[in-house]
C-alpha cells in the first residue's frame, strides 16, 4: 500500500540501524543549547 509522503521509488534501504550510529564527542560545551535556537537562521546569515 502506498504511504502518503513516502518516497516509494527509493527502494535502496540502508542495512544499518539508527541504533548502530556511533555517538560523537565534541569535548567541553562552550555555548549552552537553547530550546529555541534558530539553527537555519544561523546557517543562512552566519554564526553569531
Amino acid at each position, binding site marked *: 500500500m502506498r*504511504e*502518503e*509522503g*513516502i*518516497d516509494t*521509488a*527509493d527502494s*535502496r*534501504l*540502508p*542495512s*544499518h*540501524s*539508527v*541504533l*548502530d*550510529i*556511533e*555517538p*560523537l*564527542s*565534541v*569535548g*567541553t*560545551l*562552550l*555555548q549552552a*543549547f537553547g*530550546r529555541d*535556537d534558530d*539553527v*537555519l*537562521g*544561523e*546557517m*543562512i546569515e552566519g*554564526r*553569531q
Partner: protein
Amino acid sequence: MIHGMDTGFLVSAELVEHPDHIAARATLSRLLGNGDRVALAPQVLAEFIHIVTDSHRFRQPVEISGARRIARKWTAREVAPYFRPWRRRCNSWIGWNTFSSAESVCSIRYWRQPIVKAAFARSSPRIRMIVARSIASYDRR
C-alpha cells in the same frame, strides 16, 4: 507509528556531552524496539552538520567530512524516506555549505519555513514530532 526528529533531538542523540543524550538514545531505543519508525526532513541533516562543526559551541568540533559521514548514517533503515526525491534531497542538504549560487541561497531561504513540523503535518498527520523540549517525557501515545 512514525516519529519525526527535529534538529535538537538529532543533536542530543548524537553528542555524548549533550545533557539530553542518554534520554534521547533511550527514547530511540524504546520506539524502534516497539517496531515504530522515525523520519526527518532533509534540512535537519544540514542543521546537524552546522551545529556539530561549530567551534563556538564545542572545544573539539567535528570535522566537516566526519559530520557529513555521520549525517548520511542518519538515513538508516528505520528512517522513513519521507520527502521525494529522498536521496537527492538528503545529499543536497548534506552538501549545502558547498553551495554558492544565488539560486541555492534562495532555495535555502524558501526552506526556512517551519518545514520540520509543517511539512510533516501536511504530508501525514500521523507523524508525531519528537522535539528537543519533550525528550525526557516523550512516549509513543
